[in-house]
């Protein structure tokens, strides 16, 4: 049974790659039988090459993809160097989950509310007496500075979270002690001892950030430049072109996007190899003298504040705008408040939330079952899922992959939109959920199972009565990770749903570029609240299960004590 389920998982998760790639490559050569294109040719390539703004779009994509990744990695490393093992680190670690729970789209809308030319930042400057008319704004600017910064700020907590497990594997404190005893300051020791070990271990998360940065559509639609747009947005626009004969051009551009993403990943890998392997003399060139500024000089608590500040500001502004009745520039706060927009949108919100939640629950529960099956299979047969199967959905551009998947669905008769969307959500949710459960499953002491089996429990009883209660907190949290991943999916819902399935996320993106900030804020806020609700529920459930287990144990112990205490000689 477990073997069959394992192969079903392989089938479900590996299958999209085949139509994903075929559906991308064949239309690129203008072979699309369903649209009557039966003669392969390279016309679409010529058409793409002659597009006037192509080089600019490619440059913007390279800049945002590579720039945001390098900045996020830099921010992450500086924060770790500053705070790791300091008393302030506990607070940073606590702040990571809520910051990660804010979806990219809600964050982008809040970011736009903060830094647009009529946003809160400029309102504050006006209140301070500056005349900001004609000042450069980073929202939808032609150089994509706002998009780059927003991505870097949003991805930094993710890299920090990933770094925790990595640094726990490295003996940071002891290695730093040794380095300082050898004459290296704190900063030099982090650079020469910790960085060369941290960076290779962070390769997959960094690749995921880079791939997301160069293929992102939803955030780029809200914060990115509009003329010309980034390549991912250009692909998206061409893909939605009503003239279906231009579909090969969209396929070629999706192929180009895939190539650029792979090029960026290769560049990052090459840079890592050059710095850490090829040109490694700097690592052993000796300590710089007198760079240290004395004990305690590294505790600048302000470094982390902008990251929390921007996220908090984004949420607060979404909240304020959603209840604002009248908020003219340059007022710092609304002059009147109202529930009007919540009431006006309530029916639509309910319907969209129901769609979002059903899709999220369906895909996440399926992914959870499949992930548990794979982990149990690994434990039993010592054979885990191939690493590429987990990594590829995270590091390949979603747009390119989905493009091919959608083209493939054209070949299947019938309108199975819900099924396709749920399948695509499952495909993207599964790796995150699997990774969230991987650690707890590895840490589980297998001897507990052996002990239970020796006491007469069968396999299923052992799992249900021993393993499940112990791993329930991790399962709850993984489920919340899966649900929040599904809730944030924009492209899978739009592309495989062919625009017929709407969720809070798709509406939030559609309304973000609209005229009314108040409606946009309502959708953005709800999009941010849904994952938060599920994370809160998961934390509550895991705490309840822990407490229930503990009270159960205590009760049993009390009973045992009663029995022992009842014997006269124990009194």
């Amino acid at each position, binding site marked *: 049974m477990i073997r069959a389920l394992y192969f079903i998982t392989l089938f479900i998760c590996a299958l999209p790659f085949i139509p994903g790639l075929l559906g991308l490559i064949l239309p690129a050569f203008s072979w699309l039988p369903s649209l009557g294109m039966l003669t392969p040719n390279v016309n679409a390539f010529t058409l793409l090459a002659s597009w006037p703004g192509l080089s600019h779009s490619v440059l913007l994509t390279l800049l945002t993809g590579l720039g945001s990744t390098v900045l996020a990695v830099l921010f992450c490393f500086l924060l770790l160097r500053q705070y790791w093992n300091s008393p302030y680190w506990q607070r940073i670690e606590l702040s990571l989950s809520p910051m990660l729970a804010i979806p990219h789209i809600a964050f982008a809308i809040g970011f736009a509310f903060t830094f647009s030319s009529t946003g809160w930042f400029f309102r504050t400057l006006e209140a301070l007496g500056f005349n900001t008319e004609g000042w450069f704004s980073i929202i939808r600017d032609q150089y994509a500075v706002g998009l780059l910064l927003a991505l870097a700020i949003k991805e930094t907590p993710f890299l920090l979270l990933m770094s925790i497990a990595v640094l726990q594997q490295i003996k940071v404190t002891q290695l730093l002690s040794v380095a300082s005893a050898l004459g290296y300051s704190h900063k030099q020791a982090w650079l020469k001892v910790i960085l060369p070990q941290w960076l290779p271990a962070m390769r997959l998360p960094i690749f995921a950030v880079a791939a997301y940065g160069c293929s992102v559509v939803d955030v780029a639609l809200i914060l990115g430049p509009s003329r010309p747009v980034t390549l991912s947005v250009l692909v998206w626009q061409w893909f939605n072109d009503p003239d279906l004969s231009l579909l090969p051009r969209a396929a070629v551009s999706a192929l180009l996007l895939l190539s650029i993403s792979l090029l960026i990943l290769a560049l990052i890998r090459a840079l890592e190899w050059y710095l850490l392997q090829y040109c490694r003399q700097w690592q052993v060139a*000796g300590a710089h003298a007198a760079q240290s500024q004395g004990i305690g000089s590294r505790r600048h608590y302000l470094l982390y504040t902008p990251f929390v500040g921007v996220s908090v500001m984004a949420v607060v502004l979404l909240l304020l705008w959603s209840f604002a009745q009248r908020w003219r520039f340059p007022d710092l706060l609304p002059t009147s408040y109202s529930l009007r927009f919540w009431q006006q949108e309530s029916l639509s919100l309910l319907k969209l939330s129901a769609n979002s939640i059903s899709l999220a629950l369906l895909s996440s529960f399926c992914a959870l079952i499949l992930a548990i099956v794979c982990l149990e299979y690994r434990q039993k047969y010592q054979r885990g899922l191939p690493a590429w199967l987990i990594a590829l959905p995270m590091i390949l551009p979603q747009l390119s992959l989905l493009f091919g998947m959608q083209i493939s669905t054209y070949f299947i008769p019938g309108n199975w939109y819900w099924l396709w969307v749920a399948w695509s959500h499952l495909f993207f949710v599964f790796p995150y959920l699997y990774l969230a459960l991987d650690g707890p499953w590895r840490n589980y002491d297998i001897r507990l199972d052996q002990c239970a089996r020796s006491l007469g429990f069968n396999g299923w009883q052992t799992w249900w009565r021993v393993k499940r209660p112990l791993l329930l907190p991790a399962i709850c949290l993984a489920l919340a990770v899966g649900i929040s991943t599904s809730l944030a999916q924009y492209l899978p819902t739009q592309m495989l749903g062919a625009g017929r399935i709407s969720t809070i996320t798709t509406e939030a993106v559609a309304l973000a570029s609209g005229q009314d900030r108040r409606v946009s804020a309502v959708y953005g806020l709800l999009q941010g609240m849904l994952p938060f609700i599920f994370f809160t529920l998961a934390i509550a459930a895991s705490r309840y299960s822990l407490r229930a287990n503990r009270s159960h144990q205590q009760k049993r112990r009390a009973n045992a004590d009663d029995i022992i205490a009842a014997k006269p000689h124990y009194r």
Partner: protein
Amino acid sequence: MTLSLQNLTIGSHEQCLFENISFQVRAGEVVTLMGPSGCGKSTLLSAIAGHLSPVFSVQGAVTLNGLNVLNLPPDRRRIGILFQDDLLFPHLNIWENLAFALPRALAGQKRQDKALATLKRIGLSKLSDKMPTEISGGQRARISLMRMLLSQPHAVLLDEPFSKLDKVLRSEFRDFVFTELTRQQIPALMVSHDEHDIPVGGLALHWPWHQRDKR
């Protein structure tokens, strides 16, 4: 060089670990601190090296040839430290681990030459290009000590450096450490649970570190 502890008091807001500890370690001498687990042996070494958690307060003085190093950052104290784990840097090969400790003034090829010469002296030159995971525990321990000595420390702290080695290796490595420290005339303060670790003719301080024994 002489390492002196003068009226050293270490405590947190909850408790005082020890009060007014004073003793001296002369050049080439190894003083062994003995005591039960949890009495603060490693804490004392951390305080001297400058790695003590900020929750502790340190009063008194730790001087190296008359200079109080307590207010200096760890990297400027010039106090070498050897732990029970060898703590070779896993991303560097053996000669690079040694070169890491050399002063910056020694540049380019000279760094590699010096590292290789050190390896040759201790009979491990064949290991120069190996990674730390590819050599034995005893070899790693020797290289770890040599790395520390290459940084030319003014004093050395040994935090149970032999406790993870087996009986034969332990004896060999112990002799190697004491010979090198005596040769380079460096004062050393060692923490240990084992009476056998006290060097012949060396001083041992028993908890609460006022009672002196000579082996």
